[in-house]
């Protein structure tokens, strides 16, 4: 494997698989490297984001000279087109490619299927993107770890901030699980705060024209609009929000914006207050992350999106845990991950022992008034929860989470 060209290496390996694998996938393996599986969609709506996830993951391996425990290591990237494809490719990674652990899970449906398969195959699985609450909730298992902050927790973090704009909220949320979770939790929080609902709109997936929704919001005159739209739909909404002259008129808040979503909106239309896990230009980033952002910039000639960091940090956690465990044996890696900690200045992340959810403070960012750099959209407003001690609480108690590991 050539340093700096992981994609090519994968391709070459893939070609071998394609040509020879049908007959004999047991290609002579001279020095058996440590193999890590990467399970990320290569096509479909999510593909633009998985590109960053994968790049971050590869960068994490390159940082360590493509070695784990001093042995050569490599990544094997397979597609996750659908839950069934994901399940199968996961089996393939384990049985055919003999990987010792798997990173991936870009969509909630895929990740939920993968986590069940991971338990069945007894292979450590670190989910680097999906945000469905159940992954580390009632579906949790010993082999699955997850980075992304669950939807419910992010809502909880954003709500107090949004209340700062007023108590009359308008909800515009996706009409499927992601949006439904946001809607349910946010309404509850609003009720507790004694606010009123100006309106609720549930938006089907792949809505192309939001003007009718925006007209309704305009008429309802809320203090703040609370969004729960998923990737592409959010970009479209923000474009049209600006086009219909609403930018700056009514504040718009949403959880979990991806950098690629806001970049697709363009500087003219970008607008709003969001939560997110990481921002490349956050002055408070610890040196290690700053080094990562610089390395990414150098290699790909564009800033690292949050997804790149997510790929990087999950990969890093896995690699370091293997070293910690000094073994590629499944249970050892699981224990390694359970004890892994990333401690750099104010940022301290680790997976919670009893549900394997990473405890992590989220950022509140708002789009700059004037965007001069075509990448630099956000000002970091806060890091939530404000006190690190509240992390455990905000992520939920065992009773709330409902995770029972066998």
């Amino acid at each position, binding site marked *: 494997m050539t340093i700096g060209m992981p994609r090519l290496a994968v*391709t070459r390996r*893939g*070609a071998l*698989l*394609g040509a020879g*694998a*049908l*007959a*004999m*996938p*047991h290609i002579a393996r001279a020095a058996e490297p440590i193999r890590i599986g990467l399970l990320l969609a*290569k*096509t479909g709506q999510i*593909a633009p984001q998985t590109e960053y996830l994968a790049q971050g993951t590869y960068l994490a391996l390159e940082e360590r000279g493509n070695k784990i425990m001093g042995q050569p290591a490599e990544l094997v990237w*397979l*597609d996750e*087109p*659908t*839950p*069934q*494809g994901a*399940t*199968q*490719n996961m*089996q*393939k990674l*384990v*049985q*055919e490619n003999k990987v010792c652990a798997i990173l991936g899970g870009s*969509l*909630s*449906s895929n990740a*939920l*299927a993968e986590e*069940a398969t991971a338990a*069945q195959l007894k292979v450590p699985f670190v989910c680097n993107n999906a945000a*469905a609450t*159940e992954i580390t909730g009632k*579906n949790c298992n010993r082999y699955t770890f997850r980075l992304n902050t669950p939807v419910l927790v992010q809502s909880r973090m954003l709500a107090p901030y949004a209340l700062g704009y007023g108590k009359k909220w308008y909800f515009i949320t996706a*009409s*499927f*699980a*992601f949006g*439904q979770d946001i809607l349910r939790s946010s309404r509850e929080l609003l009720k507790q705060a004694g606010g009123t609902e100006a309106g609720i709109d*549930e938006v*089907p*997936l792949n809505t192309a024209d939001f003007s009718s929704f925006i007209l309704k919001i305009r008429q309802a005159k809320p203090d703040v609009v609370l969004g729960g739209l998923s990737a592409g739909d959010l970009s479209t909404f923000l474009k049209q929000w600006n086009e219909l002259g609403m930018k700056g008129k009514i504040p718009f808040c949403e959880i979990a914006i991806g950098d690629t979503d806001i970049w697709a909106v363009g500087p003219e239309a970008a607008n709003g207050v969001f939560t997110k896990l990481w921002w490349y230009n956050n002055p408070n980033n610890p040196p290690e992350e700053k080094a990562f952002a610089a390395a990414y910039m150098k290699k790909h000639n564009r800033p690292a999106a949050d997804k790149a960091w997510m790929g990087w940090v999950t990969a890093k956690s896995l690699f370091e845990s293997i070293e910690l465990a000094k073994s590629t044996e499944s249970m050892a890696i699981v224990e390694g991950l359970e004890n892994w900690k990333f401690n750099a200045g104010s940022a301290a992340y680790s997976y919670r022992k009893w549900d394997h959810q990473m405890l992590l403070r989220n950022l509140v960012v708002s789009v700059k008034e004037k965007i001069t750099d075509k990448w630099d959209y956000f000002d970091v407003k806060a890091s939530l929860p404000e006190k690190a001690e509240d992390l455990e609480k905000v992520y939920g108690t065992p009773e709330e989470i409902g995770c029972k590991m066998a």
Partner: protein
Amino acid sequence: MTLLRHPVLWIVLVLAALTALWHTIGAPISLITQIAIYVLYGAGVNLLVGYTGLVPFGASVFFGCATYAAAIAMRGAAGNEITALAIAVVFSLLLAAAIALIILRRRGLYFSLLTLAFSQIAFEIAFKWTDMTGGENGLQGVPRPWFVTDWSFHIFTIVVVALGMALLWRIAHAPFGRLLQALRDNEQRVQSLGYNTFRIKFEAFVIMGGVVGLAGALLTFMLHGAYADNLSWQHAGDSLLMTVMGGVHHFLGPLWGAIAFILLEDRLSAITESWWLIFAPIVMVFALASPEGMQGLVFRLFGRDDWTLTRRGIPPRPARIEPYRGGGSTDLDATRPVLEVRGLHKRFGSLVVAQDVQLDVHPFRLHSLIGPNGAGKTTFFNMLTGLLRADSGTIRFAGQDIAHLPVHRRIRLGLSRSFQILSVFRTLTAFENVRVAVQAQSPLQNSLWRDAYRLEELNARTWSLLAAVGLEDRAAEPCANLSHGEQRLLEIAISLATDARLLLLDEPLAGLAEADREVVGALIRQLASTHAVLLIEHDIDRVLALSDRITVLHQGRVIADGKPAEVANNPDVVTAYMGTARAGGPQPSVHAAAPRAVSTQPVLQLEQVRAGYAGSQVLTGIDLVVHEGEAVTLLGRNGVGKTTMLRAITGTVHKSAGRIVMDGADITQARPYEINRRGISIVPEGRRLFPNLTVMENLQIAARPGGASYDEIFGLFPKLRVLQRARAESLSGGERQMLAIARALMVPSKLILLDEPFEGLAPAIVQEVMDALVRLRGRVAMIIVEHHAETVLPIVDRAYVLVNGQVAYEGSAKALEADHALQARLLGVVQQELTAA
């Protein structure tokens, strides 16, 4: 032995081989499990596509919904896999029945789009309804209490798939399954045999739903969960794509397709992020190169082109074939008419096709219905059988008014019909063609379980019918391999099979060679001794010789009814056939018959031209020459090949031999537009105006420099000037004819072909059109096709008379005009001394 040839054994063997291979290379077995599931999915879809000829683009609605049904059942009360599968299948059957009721009334593209719409609606619901379906997250944690390991479930899946496929194979051979293929080939014919085609399609659709649902439920267990992806439009076509790749006309097509599709996806997606970039061209090239799919491609390498939707071959021919006996006619009373038609009216817009039609048909008689082209004969048959509804009037058949019954009910009462245009099941064997018809009388006609080829009684009757028309030696041939004459005979055998009391035969002699005409004629005569027969036929000589009674239709009216001799001498009939001249109709007001100096420079020459349509030879060696500026008429009775000859000249029919030369250049294989550009324009039969264009636009589209100017045209047809902004569809018959001629003149042409320019026109209009033609004479050469010799002979220089695809007379128009006996022999309704000859 038969077990060894069972395709399900192949499926099991192929899947077992793949399983063994995967085991050896240590790859996860679930990929093969998935292939097995998609084989069943594809085969269910193929029951509609390959067997029934319906293309459901969104069969995924059953696949996807069943995955949820199984998952929900499993999380609920169903304690084990088998129960959950059963629940999912029942759910799918019900869902399919409900959807079928809504969309099966639509056909073709609308049907495909509607299935896709249902799949989309299901997707929207599943994606949104998080409480029930898990929404975007899907449902996880579906247990597999009985088949815990991947291997045990894999084996279970293969067993279930094999059982499912065996069931489909069984159904394909049952009377019901065999009907599906007949329906695919020719739905109208199936209907006219007395089957309720809606019910057949409905059942096929529901079975498809059940099979696809079973596959979907298996997928749930494989994944331990259910997800919405299968319902999205990107995946809606997966099963169809696989089936087409494998070959829709092969039972094992879905097997090869599923293997190729899933393995390619698996391997390509590991290599590249844009695997569709590689896969799509493979699919496209493959689909174009081998429309019959992978199995078709392999077959072609071995020189085979047959289909394998069912077993090859037909039941063994019995040692002794029972001679055919007309069935069901014992209760007929020869003295009372079996069919009584009173006051039947029908019009299409301004065109009256039936006007107060009265007709009685008695048993044990050969009753013929004749009349010139466009008299409304076939329309009348369509009204009798119910393909068309009459505007008013009664049709009493066997004592019951049937005017408001649907087609299949009328047929079941004892009507049977053969079609003017061959209406057989082209891809089925001759045996199967007849057997499907025989089956319509059997109480087992919709059986899903019995093997259709083991119903001995039906087989025996099929053989009798085949023997009756002399096709018993050709029984195993696919219909498409039979000659035109044999297909005609087959058509009759099919019509006989329904045990009809009344046989309606529509031009059974069309396109037959003389020897075949004798055979079929004798058969029809023989049938008249056991049935009532109503015959439409243009071979007047034979009609006169064979019939007991003749009714003549003209422009939708009955103009004569009686014994052959009476009818032949009826002046109205003579006028209808021979033209209006003798009855004192219009005469060219410009006297044109004066001898003119005609150029000897040929414009067009035909040398030994042979041409025809699929299988039937209509022109059998024609020689013809037209000189510059000459007017030639082409005469002959209906069906002798006049129109085909014009089509041969204009390049719209395939010529199997001979040469056509225009101005010294060979145009035999030229394309129609090239021929037109060389200077041949046509006024086609039925005018063929563009109904959605105005008069002016119809002219504009043809206009080219060198053709007639608009002023010239309006000078020739003053009426068109007034009508220039009217749409062609609103014109009357005469106006249409004028426009068609005018349109042909807009093209700079040296030769104009006119196909029955006077057909269906009122006498005053005939006069106008004729005057226009006379004015054109000498300016361009013309070929005028006519069957009224008297009308056309005065305005042309020379005449050709065709009889059965050959030139029977060639000479000056004057000579033919004078020779009444010759005219009568070649063209008229005169009883020839057939028996004496």
